[in-house]
């Protein structure tokens, strides 16, 4: 079952610069539970890619294992996808990104996939500042194995099964900040107006971009005692401000009241507008971001929106000084030194 409507499309659907309608960015019909937050996130991904006029086949979507990790089948049907093994998507993306630096890498994971079994790979992908978008569809439980608490479940929160969780939660944005992540955001599957521009900004960012999206599991963790339910998140979310993303090619049409807005030019020329940013947060200052996260957490609120961004981030390819030409396009002439060199090597071994 699914909330995503099967494909019947009005011929007059708006087309983007490439002439694609939103339908061109959709995938197969979802098999997730009706109302699952993950499907809404898929919808936001579709919208963001369409609005950014990305070529679908230049995106690679990769995931681990879980309901969340299934969702790449349900968007971007023209893109290659890779459903890898549980918790190990970051390494597969690392290799893929090394092979071809020209694709956009979209990783999708769950809170189990990221914060438990995949914690090691997640942290090291951040540390290397791998050029990718990493979306965690965070429902505080293991959906696919029927609702066990995950490591992001809040202390005291209880899933449908009942017992309050005795352990503290791992806060992924906070952790990412400490590890040196260069783009950190949090959002809510139910808030597309916030999520879509964040996905666009993350896709334009050079380096590792984390978006932790609270995404309720309607089947196992949407009950009143849960802090990952629709109701709880709606009531406790506090946005850092609003984000507006203007792609490089587009004109800036909205006018923002002076004094309330900050403008950031991304490396490709796109512009990010942040407005009504809370006075407590400077999203370009890591310690300010950490402080804000902690302050909201201790007051029982969930801080959403853009939390931190490093405008001068250097991604792994820059650090490794790899060739501008994607490594997977190199041929014998570029790669094989030939027999003459080998004979010199032989001579040095006698």
């Amino acid at each position: 079952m699914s909330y995503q409507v099967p494909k019947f499309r009005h011929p007059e659907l708006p087309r983007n610069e490439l002439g694609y309608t939103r339908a061109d960015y959709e995938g197969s019909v979802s098999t997730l539970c009706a109302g699952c937050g993950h499907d809404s996130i898929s919808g936001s991904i579709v919208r963001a890619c369409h609005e950014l006029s990305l070529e679908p086949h230049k995106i690679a979507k990769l995931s681990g294992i879980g309901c969340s990790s299934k969702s790449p089948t349900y968007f971007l049907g023209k893109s290659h996808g890779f459903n890898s093994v549980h918790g190990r998507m970051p390494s597969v993306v690392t290799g893929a990104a090394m092979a071809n630096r020209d694709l956009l890498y979209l990783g999708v994971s769950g809170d189990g996939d990221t914060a438990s079994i995949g914690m090691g790979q997640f942290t090291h992908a951040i540390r290397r500042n791998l050029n990718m978008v990493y979306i965690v569809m965070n429902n505080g439980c293991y959906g696919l194995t029927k609702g066990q608490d995950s490591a992001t479940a809040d202390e005291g929160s209880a899933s449908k099964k009942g017992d309050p969780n005795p352990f503290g939660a791992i806060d992924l944005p906070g952790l990412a900040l400490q590890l040196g992540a260069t783009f950190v955001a949090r959002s809510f599957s139910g808030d597309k107006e916030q999520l879509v521009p964040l996905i666009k900004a993350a896709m334009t960012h050079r380096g590792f971009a984390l978006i932790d999206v609270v995404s309720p599991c309607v089947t196992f963790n949407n009950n009143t005692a849960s802090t990952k339910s629709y109701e709880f998140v709606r009531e406790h979310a506090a946005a850092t401000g609003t984000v507006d993303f203007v792609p490089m090619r587009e004109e800036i049409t909205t006018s923002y009241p002076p004094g309330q807005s900050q403008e950031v030019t991304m490396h490709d020329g796109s512009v990010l507008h942040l407005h009504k940013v809370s006075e407590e947060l400077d999203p370009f200052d890591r310690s300010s971001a950490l402080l804000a996260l902690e302050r909201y957490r201790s007051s029982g609120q969930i801080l959403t929106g853009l939390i931190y961004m490093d405008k001068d981030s250097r991604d792994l390819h820059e650090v490794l000084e790899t060739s501008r030409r994607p490594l997977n396009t190199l041929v014998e002439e570029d790669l094989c030194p030939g027999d003459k060199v080998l004979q010199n090597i032989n001579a040095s071994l006698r």
Partner: protein
Amino acid sequence: MKSLEAVNEFVIKFANVNGTGSASANNLFAKALFRMGLPVSPKNIFPSNIQGLPTWYEVRVSEKGYLGRRGGVDIMVSVNPQSMPQDIKEVEPGGYFIYDDTKPLDLRLIRNDVNIIGLPLTRICNEQYSDPRQRQLFKNVIYVGALAALLDMDFAVITQLVGDQFKGKEKLVLPNIHALELGHQYVKSNLDCPIGITVRTSDQVGEKILLDGNTALGLGAIYGGATVAAWYPITPSTSVVDAYEKYAKRLRIDPGTGSRNYAIVQAEDELAAMGMVIGASWNGARAFTATSGPGLSLMSEFLGLAYFAEIPTVLFDVQRAGPSTGMPTRTQQSDVLSAAYASHGDTKQVLLFPSTPKECFDMGAASFDLAERLQTPIILMTDLDLGMNDNMSEPLHWDDDRKYDRGKVLSADDLDRIERYGRYLDVDGDAICYRTYPGTHPEKGAFFTRGTSRDEYAVYTERGEEYEKNMHRLMAKWETIKQYVPKPQVIRSKQKTDTALLYYGTSEESSREAMDYLAEDGIHVNAMRVRAFPFNDEVEAFLHEHERVFIIEQNRDAQLRTLLMAEFELGPDKLKSVLCFDGTPISARNIRKQILLQMPGYNVTPLRRERVVGNGE
């Protein structure tokens, strides 16, 4: 006492303390003999430790060309008092025990059946050098100089070699030559020399080179076109990636931009290393990782994914003694079964077994062609002995007309010509299907790679027939693979025989030497060296042809034999085991002994396996 007498045929062993610089001096000794035209086979037997524990270096010198371990020690150079009691026991009767007599030898250790030769190494060093580090380093060089006199080596070859080895660091040449002369002079003026074992210049080396298998593998990866290396440090595989990096820095820099035509990622663990290789290969780059047993265990889940999703993957497994951490700096061939069936579910993995550095280079480069052609993991099984020791080898060669075999990959034009693309559709009937790289075509050719069951169009399915069909195709592909992997090599005895030896990897040299010994015992055998799994049809035919086949390997559980029994449904009466798993390379004498014990009419019947195996001489 009858002293051993030999020219150009002997085994010498050095007993040192690790971290004292002995390895380079011992290497100088071996290389000098090699330069004199003598086949040498040096083996470093070292502890898993950085400084202070016993370490040995054994050099087989054989003008006849035997490169394996023979067993036994003719000359022991004992520079480590810690291991002296054990070391003197190892010397063959009539052999030579050379020790530092600055301190008198413990009387309890003295053996009347060996020649005991004292060299006042510490005293000479203390007189000559004041700096403790110099005293330690040059002590090693001094005994090399002394050996040159004792064995009647060509001294000029050694001094020339020192010049070559310190090219660019000329300051070090003279002090080293001085130390060599100190040892040489001392022997000339104080001892009877040469001893009964001597060396003479020969011509048995020809074009051959002295190279370790790991460096050869690293070079193979460069020549084979690998652009992505992902790895996690582990002995004895680390030097594979070290070598790849060393040569990449020289040979893979883009001349125009100075940027790198390669990427090396030191991963957080072996799981990640394998994931990176899979990701890169999926995306159309040639990628590899190198590891040893513990890493292989960690990579298991991913190897199953690569097998099932059919992603080219190259893994170099430099085996060491397991299980668990085992003896991490000792050699074994004990990952055979865990590699062959790596991962849960019904999996079979392709294995390659190189025996020499040249084969490491050739098979290393070929791994990438095979992986892409066959769309499956290729696990190259080498070991510490081959990987970390200098081995005499045929020179490396590359055919400049050779093109990489990138396997079945569809371009955008290809896709335009097809009606409907199916990733797992067996179009050609060889059970190998067509891949597409991400980003190839705006509308066609995209698919979902997954470890879950799917149909021929890569669409998720849980229908049992579809799943079975795919599993059958993978078995059909296994048959196809047999035609691509390297064929075995066979040696036929001039005499008709129903007995054969079968070996692989580093057991080759000792096995061949053992064949000569056995011929002297009146036992003639045919021999086969297996070079890959799946076993080619030739292997099966060879087994059927013989009454009894001795499977020679370096592990406890006769792993290749188990694999042969499973694949060919053969029984234990036909397939006999010759095993060594004490962590040292198997020796020719050990092989001979184990075979004699199992040959009808030649033995006191060995009733218990324990009496046959182990005891690796």
